[in-house]
């Protein structure tokens, strides 16, 4: 059964308005449009971030000295997220983690959710008959995708820097990078592996490679985990309605600015 066609659309949503309209039309008889994540963890920030960036907003100023996620773009992005929650997501989404929203999708309870390149493997295992397609984030101000950067870290105070470095080199050499990427369903870190035939010939992977061009990732600074948590808390407050999106983001921004020493 093709949910999109049934709702009268021939293509995945290209804009926010279309996205909301389609999500709303999926919301009936116990099914929902969007598997939203809204618990009080970093996974909620992860789900909201593309809406913030897509609306032209950002978390911090370029020099990472000040919070700007409470700008009008940010507030609008959170208002949209709240609207998605109220009109097209299960109420229980505020306690859902990423895994829950994926399960909702796999079990056919929600029509759309946000996933990464690892997800096609899940579908293959858990819902092999599912007819699915992957589309980029709907566009508002600019096309966007979520890039998450993983860091391999060596401590400055390490007594075994050389050995650590040897391991890093070994782990990320072309051969192992490709193995890791295929095993995890990740995009390879090494450019040379981006042309690996198994990766470019996989339709889903080719798609993710393509949208990676528009990917934005979190700022890298030591305070990020605290900023992340403050934003996640603000999102949850707005979703439940104890604060308006503007109030919630302003309070979080105040907290973050304090952290950053302003």
């Amino acid at each position, binding site marked *: 059964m093709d949910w999109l066609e049934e709702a009268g659309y021939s293509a995945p949503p290209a804009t926010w308005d279309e996205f909301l309209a389609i999500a709303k039309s999926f919301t009936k008889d116990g099914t929902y449009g969007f598997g939203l994540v809204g*618990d*009080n*963890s*970093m996974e909620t920030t992860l789900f909201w971030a593309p809406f913030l960036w897509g609306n032209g907003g950002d978390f911090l100023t370029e020099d990472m000295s000040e919070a700007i996620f409470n700008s009008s773009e940010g507030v609008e992005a959170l208002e949209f997220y709240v609207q998605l929650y109220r009109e097209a997501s*299960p*109420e*229980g*989404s*505020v*306690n859902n983690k990423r895994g*829950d929203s994926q*399960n*909702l999708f796999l*079990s056919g*309870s929600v029509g759309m959710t946000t996933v990464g390149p690892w997800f096609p493997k899940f579908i293959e295992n858990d819902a092999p008959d599912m007819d699915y397609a992957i589309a980029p984030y709907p566009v508002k101000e600019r096309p966007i995708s979520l890039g998450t950067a993983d860091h391999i870290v060596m401590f*400055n*105070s390490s007594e075994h820097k050389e050995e650590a470095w040897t391991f890093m080199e070994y782990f990320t050499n072309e051969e192992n990078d490709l193995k890791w990427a295929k095993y995890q369903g990740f995009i390879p870190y090494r450019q040379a592996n981006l042309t690996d035939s198994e990766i470019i010939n996989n339709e889903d992977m080719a798609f993710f490679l393509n949208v990676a061009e528009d990917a934005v990732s979190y700022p890298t600074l*030591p*305070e990020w*985990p*605290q900023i992340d*948590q403050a934003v996640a*808390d603000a999102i*949850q*407050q707005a979703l*439940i309605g*104890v604060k308006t999106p503007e109030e919630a983001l302003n309070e979080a921004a105040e907290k973050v600015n304090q952290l950053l020493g302003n």
Partner: protein
Amino acid sequence: MTGVFFILPALLVLFIVVFYPLAWTFWLSLQQKILIAPHRDQFLGLGHFQTIFSSGEIWDFLVITLIFTISSVLLKIIFGMIGALLLHQSYPGTKVYWSLFTIPWLIPSVVAALIWRWMLHEQFGIVNQVLISVGVLETPIPWLSRELLALVAVILVDAWVGLPFMIIVCLAGLKTIPEQWYEASRVDGANAFQQFVYITLPGMKAILLVMGTLSFIGTFNSFNIIYTMTGGGPVNATNTLVIHIYRTAFTEYNFGMASALAVVTFIFISFFVLYYRRLLDKEGEF
């Protein structure tokens, strides 16, 4: 003098796993210590405590902790007592029930919490499924996504997990009350209710007081169930002090602040431990 050598191993273990971490936590609580920002490490003195008490959030978390703890302990004591009274009868099959009752206690609490999180899930949960199919509900309820419901849910699950132990202890307590007392009272014409009020309860007083206090301390520090079920959410509705400390330490890596919060919690809990010691001293005369 040789006695010292005999307790030395135990002292050493105690030192390593209790005193050293305790002292280290106190020391950390005076520091600016964020694991991923080592360049900003510095001595703060009482700075963290100033932040904690000036923001006032801690009182909200203390109130949630107290609501959670008192409700859960009361449930455990009331139903523990009822369960023990039921199992104290010698009907055929009480042994089977006894074994069944201990199951929640035998399951690792994280597993129990995961099972309940799953059962209470709005879409996949069997609780909603059953309530809808028997006609109690029309639409599913998101049990863990509304502030009050989530708090009630974690209280009930915590009580469910802790109940078996309470039943076992209460049962042991009931067995210490001499059967003759009941016989004598029956001869004097006491009914079941009077027997309960004038024989069972006074006989159980020492055990109930001690278990209540111990259970209070254990529940106050309860972590697994709340963290697994709600993570402290929605919007801090189930954010007890322990959960708050964990999140500060391990999602924000702010070990200095987390230690300061732990010290404050330690002071709160110390009052209950002192009270418990006084109870024990008093009951020692019993």
